[in-house]
């Protein structure tokens, strides 16, 4: 079974819990005392991931770190529908990769602001917030024009991709870093759509959406 080195309040770990839930994958969660224990910087954990970061998975002998990389692996290995990581469509595959990097940018800004405000990490909070707003403007613009063309997801197409999963957690948690989403109505609508995907689960700090239509 897949083993996930996990911390409940980590948005990057949540990406994987969320995605595995959507794929219907069973996994074992190994809790890491990220805060306040800093167990991810302990000797035993550094042997698993020398970068001292969460998440990490182990699967059939493979040890893999980095949330985006793990999303790629899980989609390529376990998604029989081929929708989440469209390897057969070079254009969309390129776009997915582009937005996976964008998700790293969200982590570097919105997640950093959240760590500063919630867990007292030493960060330049104004720079983090400014950077996150810059990215959110780009994302809102992109999603708004997507809506105009009838597209619900970050990468054009009928179905969501791992780009949506990679970007969602630190967007939805942004207010914990003092980054309001009030000015991003298209992002707010996209968040509702992600929450209505089959298999969606919440984490602490994320509320569920109601049903999309009458039962």
């Amino acid at each position, binding site marked *: 079974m897949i083993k996930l080195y996990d911390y409940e309040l980590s948005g990057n770990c949540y990406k994987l819990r969320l995605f595995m839930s959507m794929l219907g994958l069973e996994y074992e969660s190994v809790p890491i005392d990220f805060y306040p224990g800093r167990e991810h910087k302990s000797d035993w954990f550094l042997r698993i991931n020398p970068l001292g970061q969460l998440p990490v998975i182990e699967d059939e002998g493979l040890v893999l770190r980095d949330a985006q990389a793990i999303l790629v692996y899980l989609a390529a290995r376990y998604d029989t529908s081929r929708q989440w990581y469209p390897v057969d469509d070079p254009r969309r595959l390129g776009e997915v990769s582009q937005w996976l990097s964008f998700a790293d940018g969200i982590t570097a800004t919105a997640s950093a602001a959240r760590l500063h*405000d919630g867990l007292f990490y030493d960060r330049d909070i104004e720079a983090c917030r400014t950077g996150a707003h810059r990215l959110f403007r780009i994302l809102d613009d992109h999603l708004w024009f997507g809506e105009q063309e009838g597209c619900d997801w970050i990468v054009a197409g009928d179905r969501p991709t791992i780009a949506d999963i990679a970007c969602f957690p630190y967007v939805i948690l942004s207010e914990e870093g*003092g980054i309001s989403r009030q000015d991003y109505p298209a992002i707010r609508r996209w968040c509702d759509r992600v929450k209505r995907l089959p298999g969606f689960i919440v*984490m602490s700090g994320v509320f569920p959406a109601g049903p999309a239509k009458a039962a």
Partner: protein
Amino acid sequence: MSNATHCSDRVALDLWHPVAVIEEAAPGLVHATRLLQEQLHYALFADGTAAVWRAEPALRIGDPVEPGMLPPALPVKLAYGYVWTSLGNPPAELFAIPEWEEADRRRLHAATMGVKVSAPRAIENFLDMGHFPYVHTDILGAEPHTEVKEYDVDISVERDEILATRCRFFQPMASTASSGGADVDYIYRVPHPFCSVLYKSSPVDENRLDVIAIFVQPIDEENVRAHMMLCVLDEDNEDKIIKRFQQTIFGQDKPILENQYPKRLPLDPRAETPIRADKSSIAYRRWLRDKGLTYGVIPAAA
């Protein structure tokens, strides 16, 4: 929002406030925190003592210090795993948690978290059961079991604290031993305007209660650090499992607290709409009003 740069509320100044976690601060070095809009420095020493002082340029964060070379110190108390201080004239004693002394209990600091809310809003949420099915879904409550049954609230004059008893709420996984749900008993104490202590049925010993406390450090009127302490009967779970549970719960409360408007707790009865389930919150607001507390609240019009 008040724009005062310092706290001038005598009630808040004279309280003991938690400012640091004893086990987290490396001894012999200067650490920093904020309290009531003031920058404080503190240090713990190998002999088990601690000092807290108003930050001044001569000592910087990370500098090594010894007890003899400190600026004029603020009052200090070490209790329940935390360093407490005061910017005014604090009472001789901090409130008692007798269970802390019981030898067979696990004493844990679960986490300190920053929350963008006033201290009284954080305490009021801690006293609230009605949100369990909605905010702590499938952990502390689950629909359709949403009823808050009648409970009792008293303000003890002699101990100057609020006590809510006979509180019961349906919990879907009442204990690890049973798979079904059941009513769980709670007792809430508010012995300090910014601290609350919860007693909850112990899953391992039906005659005793687990203790979960929240000690709120007001950074300013609308921002806090919440320190969470556990003092529980549990021989099976690793520390980190117990901490994870508490962090999960608090992490669920956080976005609710950060979406309350206004952030300061309104003491005017007509600011919000109480129901019977809110007895403890009504008592708490009245108690704060009677104390004349103004910090982190919107005082009722005279």
